[in-house]
C-alpha cells in the first residue's frame, strides 16, 4: 500500500460512503458500498486514516444504530489493515466506552435494544480480535484483561448465555420440524382418504362448467355466425373474449409501430401498456342454469377447502385449473321470488344432477340452433311473466306482504326498487323451465274475471287492514271503558266500594274505533341533482354549485371565482407536480422531480428526513403530553397563574382579616 497524496474527489466519495453505511440503520452493512470503501482504502494509508477519523466521529454520535454500523465497519477493516489495527488499538479505551458501556456515567444512547445488541457484539468481536491478533498486539490483550478486571465483564458467562440461546433456538427448530412432519403425515392420510371424493367433485365441477360455458367445439361450427352471439349469453361472452384477444393482438402490432414512430422522434419507448386479457365469460344466473350453478358453487366450496395436495400433483393441478376457471366466471346472482319458488328443488341437489342437466343440454342446443323458435318462445315467456306478475300484485293486495306496495319503485332505498332493477336486467336471458312456463300459462288461461271487475279493481283504492276495518260491518260499536282510580289515586290499599269500581267510558271511544290514523311521512322526492364536478386528481375539495352535464359550472360569477382559485392553485403547484405523475416518473427514470416545498415566508422547507433508515429518537418526544406540558409548564404561564392565585388568596385574607392589626399593611 502506497501512501500517495489523497485525491479530494475520492475523499469526498469516501465520506459519503462512510456516512451512508453508518446511517443505514440496518443490521448488516451494504455489501456493495462496503466493497467500494475497501477498494478505496486499499489504495492509500491516508484514506484509511481519514476513514478512521470519520468512523470514530460517527461512533460518538448519540444514536445506537449509527454506532452499531460504525463498529461493524471497524471490525471489517480491523481484520484487514495493520494501520487501522494500530489506530483502533490506540483508541481502544474510547471504543470500549462508546460501544461496550464500561463507564457507568456514559450510558449508551437509545434505542435501547440496538444498544444491547451492540454491547454484546462489541464484546464478542473484541474477544475474537484478541484470539487472532492478541499475540502481535499486546495492548489488545491488555484491553481484554482490562474489560475482565475493571469493567467486570464475564466473557465466560456471555459465551454460556450465547450457547444457551443457541441451544434453545435449536430445540425450537427441532420441535417445529417435528410438528411439520406430523402435519405432513396427517395430510398424507387425509389425501388418500379424500382422493376419490375430490376427484368426483372435480369431475362434477368440470361438468357444470361444461354446461355453463360450452367450449367452441361443442357447437357445430358450420352454423351461421349470428346464431350464438346474440341469444345465449354464456356463449356470447366466450366469443367476445376470443374476439377481444384478436383485437388486442392487432393492437400490439399497432403499438409496436407507434413505438417505432416514437423512437424515431427521439421519445422513449418505455410505455407501460396494460392489457387485461383475463376477462372471463360472464354468466347471468337464471332459473334455468340455477341448479347447475348451485351445484358448481357447492363443488367449488368443497374443492377450495382442500389445501396443498403435495403428493397428488396432477390432481392438484386439475383442481386448480377448474377452480381458476370457475373464478373467472362472473356470476350475477338472482334474488327475489324465483329463489323462493325454486328453493324446494334446490334442496336436493345430488351429484347425479349433473347427469340430468347434461341430458338437458342437447335441448338447449336445439333451442339455440333454431333462433326464430327460441325468440318466439322468449316473447311468449315475457307475456306470461308479465301476466303472472300482475296476478301476484293482485294477490298481494289481499294478503299481507313483506313488500309494501306504498313504496315506489323509483325510490332506490326500497325493496321494490331492488326487485324492479333485478326484473329489468335478466329478462333477456331468462328461460324458465318447461314446467314453470306451463304453470304460468295455466294461471294466465282462465280469464274468467269480468272486465268490469278488473277495471274496478284497478281503480279501487287499496287500504291496509286496520282497526276501522275490523269494526267495518258492526253498526253500533260499544265505546271501550276504563276502571277509574278513585279518590285516593289507587285501587288496592283501601276497601273497594262500588263507586270506585265504576267503569268510565273512554272519551270519544266509539269514534276512535271508526277512524284511521294515517301518518304523514312526506312524499318521496327523487334526487334531481348529482355531483358532476370533474374530479381533480389531488384533493376532494370542489365547490358546491350548479353544473351542467359535462361538469362545467353554469353560473358565470361562480365560474370566474373557480377560475381564479384554480389559477392560484396552479401557481402554488403546477400541473406537472402531480404526485401520482411524479411517482410514476420516479419509478421509471429514477429521478425525483418534486419541487421542494416552501413555507409561507418563501423559504425552503426543511428536508423531511435525512436518513430514513435510522430510528427516530425524537419520536417518543412528540407526544401530546410533551406538547401540552411545554405550554402549560412554561415559566411565564406558571408565573401568571401563580400571580393570579396569589391575588385571589390575598383578597380573601383582606376580606376576612382586614380589620386585624397584623394584616394592616397588606393592602
Amino acid at each position: 500500500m502506497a501512501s500517495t497524496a489523497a485525491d479530494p474527489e475520492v475523499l469526498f466519495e469516501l465520506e459519503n460512503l462512510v456516512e451512508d453505511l453508518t446511517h443505514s440503520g440496518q443490521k448488516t452493512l451494504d455489501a456493495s458500498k462496503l466493497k467500494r470503501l475497501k477498494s478505496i482504502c486499499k489504495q492509500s494509508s491516508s484514506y484509511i486514516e481519514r476513514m478512521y477519523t470519520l468512523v470514530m466521529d460517527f461512533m460518538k454520535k448519540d444514536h445506537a444504530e449509527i454506532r452499531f454500523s460504525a463498529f461493524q465497519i471497524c471490525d471489517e477493516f480491523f481484520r484487514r489493515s495493520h494501520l487501522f489495527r494500530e489506530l483502533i488499538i490506540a483508541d481502544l479505551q474510547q471504543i470500549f466506552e462508546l460501544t461496550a458501556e464500561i463507564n457507568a456515567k456514559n450510558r449508551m444512547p437509545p434505542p435501547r435494544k440496538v444498544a444491547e445488541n451492540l454491547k454484546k457484539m462489541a464484546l464478542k468481536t473484541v474477544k475474537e480480535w484478541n484470539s487472532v491478533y492478541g499475540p502481535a498486539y499486546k495492548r489488545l490483550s491488555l484491553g481484554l484483561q482490562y474489560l475482565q478486571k475493571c469493567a467486570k465483564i464475564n466473557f465466560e458467562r456471555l459465551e454460556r448465555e450465547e450457547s444457551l440461546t443457541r441451544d434453545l433456538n435449536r430445540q425450537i427448530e427441532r420441535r417445529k420440524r417435528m410438528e411439520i412432519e406430523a402435519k405432513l403425515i396427517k395430510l398424507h392420510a387425509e389425501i388418500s382418504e379424500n382422493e376419490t371424493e375430490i376427484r368426483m367433485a372435480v369431475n362434477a365441477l368440470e361438468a357444470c362448467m361444461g354446461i355453463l360455458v360450452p367450449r367452441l367445439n361443442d357447437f357445430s361450427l358450420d352454423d351461421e355466425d349470428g346464431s350464438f352471439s346474440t341469444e345465449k349469453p354464456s356463449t356470447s361472452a366466450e366469443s367476445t373474449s376470443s374476439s377481444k384477444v384478436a383485437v388486442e393482438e392487432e393492437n400490439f402490432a399497432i403499438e409496436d409501430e407507434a413505438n417505432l414512430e416514437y423512437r424515431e422522434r427521439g421519445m422513449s419507448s418505455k410505455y407501460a401498456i396494460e392489457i387485461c386479457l383475463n376477462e372471463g365469460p360472464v354468466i347471468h344466473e337464471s332459473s334455468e342454469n340455477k341448479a347447475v350453478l348451485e351445484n358448481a358453487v357447492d363443488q367449488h366450496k368443497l374443492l377450495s377447502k382442500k389445501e396443498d395436495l403435495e403428493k397428488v400433483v396432477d390432481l392438484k393441478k386439475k383442481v386448480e385449473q377448474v377452480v381458476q376457471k370457475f373464478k373467472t366466471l362472473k356470476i350475477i346472482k338472482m334474488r327475489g321470488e324465483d329463489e323462493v319458488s325454486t328453493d324446494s328443488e334446490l334442496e336436493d341437489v345430488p351429484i347425479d344432477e349433473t347427469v340430468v342437466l347434461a341430458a338437458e343440454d342437447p335441448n338447449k342446443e336445439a333451442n339455440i340452433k333454431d333462433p326464430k323458435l327460441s325468440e318466439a318462445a322468449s316473447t311468449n315467456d315475457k307475456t306470461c311473466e308479465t301476466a303472472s306478475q300482475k296476478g301476484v300484485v293482485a294477490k298481494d293486495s289481499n294478503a299481507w306482504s313483506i313488500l309494501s306496495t306504498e313504496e315506489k319503485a323509483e325510490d332506490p332505498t326500497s325493496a321494490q326498487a331492488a326487485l324492479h332493477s333485478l326484473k329489468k336486467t335478466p329478462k333477456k336471458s331468462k328461460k324458465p323451465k318447461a314446467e314453470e312456463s306451463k304453470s304460468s300459462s295455466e294461471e294466465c288461461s282462465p280469464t274468467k274475471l269480468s272486465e268490469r271487475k278488473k277495471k274496478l279493481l284497478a281503480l279501487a283504492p287499496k287500504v291496509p287492514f286496520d282497526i276501522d276495518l275490523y269494526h267495518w260491518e258492526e253498526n253500533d260499536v260499544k265505546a271501550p271503558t276504563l276502571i277509574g282510580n278513585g279518590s285516593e289515586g289507587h285501587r288496592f290499599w283501601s276497601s273497594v266500594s262500588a263507586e270506585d269500581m265504576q267503569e268510565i267510558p273512554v272519551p270519544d271511544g266509539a269514534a276512535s274505533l271508526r277512524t284511521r290514523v294515517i301518518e304523514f311521512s312526506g312524499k318521496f322526492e327523487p334526487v334531481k341533482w348529482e355531483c358532476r364536478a370533474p374530479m381533480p386528481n389531488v384533493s376532494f375539495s370542489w365547490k358546491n354549485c350548479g353544473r351542467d352535464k359535462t361538469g362545467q359550472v353554469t353560473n358565470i360569477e361562480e365560474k370566474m371565482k373557480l377560475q381564479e382559485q384554480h389559477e392560484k392553485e396552479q401557481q402554488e403547484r403546477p400541473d406537472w407536480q402531480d404526485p401520482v405523475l411524479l411517482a410514476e416518473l420516479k419509478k421509471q427514470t429514477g429521478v425525483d422531480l418534486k419541487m421542494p416545498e416552501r413555507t409561507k415566508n418563501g423559504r425552503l422547507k426543511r428536508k423531511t428526513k435525512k436518513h430514513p433508515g435510522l430510528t427516530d429518537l425524537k419520536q417518543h418526544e412528540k407526544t401530546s403530553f410533551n406538547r401540552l406540558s411545554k405550554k402549560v409548564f412554561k415559566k411565564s404561564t406558571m408565573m401568571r397563574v401563580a400571580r393570579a392565585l396569589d391575588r385571589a388568596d390575598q383578597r380573601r385574607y383582606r376580606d376576612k382579616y382586614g380589620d386585624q392589626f397584623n394584616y394592616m399593611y397588606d393592602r
Partner: protein
Amino acid sequence: MFRSLENARAGVVSPNAFRTIEITKRSYNLQLSQLRDIESVHTALINSIQVDNKIGRYMLSGCADGTIYIHDLFNLSGSPSHTCKAVWREKKATVNSHNASVETVQWYPFDMGLFVTSGLDKILKIWDANTLQPCSKISAKGQIYQHHMSPVPAKNCVIAVASSDHNVVLFDLRIGNCTQELRGHSNAVISCEWSSNDEHILATGGSDSRLLVWDIRSAKHCLLSLDIENKNAVLDHKKANRAHDGYISSVKFIDNSTSLLSFGTDNKLRLWNLVSGKNQEVDYGNIKNNRKKKIQIDVSQNSNPSVVYVPSDGNILIFEIKTGDLVNTLTGHYNKTNCCYFDPIYLYLYSGGYDQTILVWSDDNVQYVGYTDSKKPVSSSKSKFGRPQKPVVDPESLLEDAWSDED
C-alpha cells in the same frame, strides 16, 4: 548496542561514556515490553510503585483498597519471556493492612530489611521485610498523601510526611515519633521529597499552590518559596507565592539536587533552579492532570540528556528535561495512570493506574526479535521426538495487511 560495546572494548569510548550512551538510548526508546509481564494480582487502582534500589529484585506496590504487593522481578525461568510473580500480598481488611487507600510505599534506601507504607487511614506503617509484619505504626494528624525517606545516609533516618494537615511532619525512625513540624503551608500538603545529596534539604508542594524548599536545621521558616513569575522568590514565605495554579501533585529533585521539577493540576510541569530559586521557564506543553492527590513521576538517572516520565491521563509522556521536548508517548494503559517508577539498575519503567495492572516498558525489541526467531519452527516440521509440533502463529504475520483479492 553491540557496536558501542565493541567501541568500549577497543577503548575508543570510555566505559562511563558507553554506560551513559546505553542508558540514554534505553531510557529514550521505551515501549511495552514484549518479554516481561507483571502478574496481575492487584484488586484496585495502583497508587505507588517502587523497586528496591539495592539489587533491583523486589517491587513494592500499593493499591487503593489498602492492599500491598511484592513482586519478584528476577527472571530465573531460563526463558527471556517471563511473567514476574507476586511473592507476597497483604490482603484487604486484615489486622496489619491499611484500612484506606495506600498512597505511598517505599523501601528503606539502605537495605531491604524494611519498608514503609502510608495511606489515607492516617497511619504510617514500618514493616519488617523478613517477617512481613509491621513493626511500628505511627499516627499522623491527617490523611497521608506522601511520605519520603532521604536516600542520603545520615545519623538518624527521618521520614517526611505530607498530609491533609497543613504542617509537614518529620518522623524519626529511631525515636518512632514526630520530632519536628514544618509550618509554612496554609492547606493540605500533597507531595514531599528529600534532596538526593543533602540530608537536610526537603521540598514540599501543597494544595495551596505553594512549593516550599526547607532546610530542616532552621525550622523557623522555609529556605525557598518558589514563584511562577520569580517575584520575591527568596525567603519570603508570608506573601503567597504561587508555583502552580492549583495543587502541586509531584515534586522531584534532579541533577544532584540543583534543580527541581514540579507537576501541578494546572496541567503544567515546571523546572526550578534551586540555586537561584527561579523558574527555568521550560515549556513542556499542556500535560493533562486533574488528580488532586499525589502523582508519582520519575526521571531517568545517569542518562544524558535526562528525561522525565510523567503519567498523564492514560499515557506516560517522556520529556527531555532541559529542552522540554516531548520524546515519546507511551500508550498502553486503559483509563488513567497515576504512578511510574524508572528502575535505574535494569532500566525498566514500571507504571500503574486505574486499570489495576502494572505495565513494564523497556527497550527490548532486539531481544524480542531474536527470541521469536529462535522460537520459529525449524524447516523440518517434526520435532526430535517425532511428535507433530503445534503450529505456531508467527506474530509478525499478524502485523501485515490482509486485503482479500475481491475487495
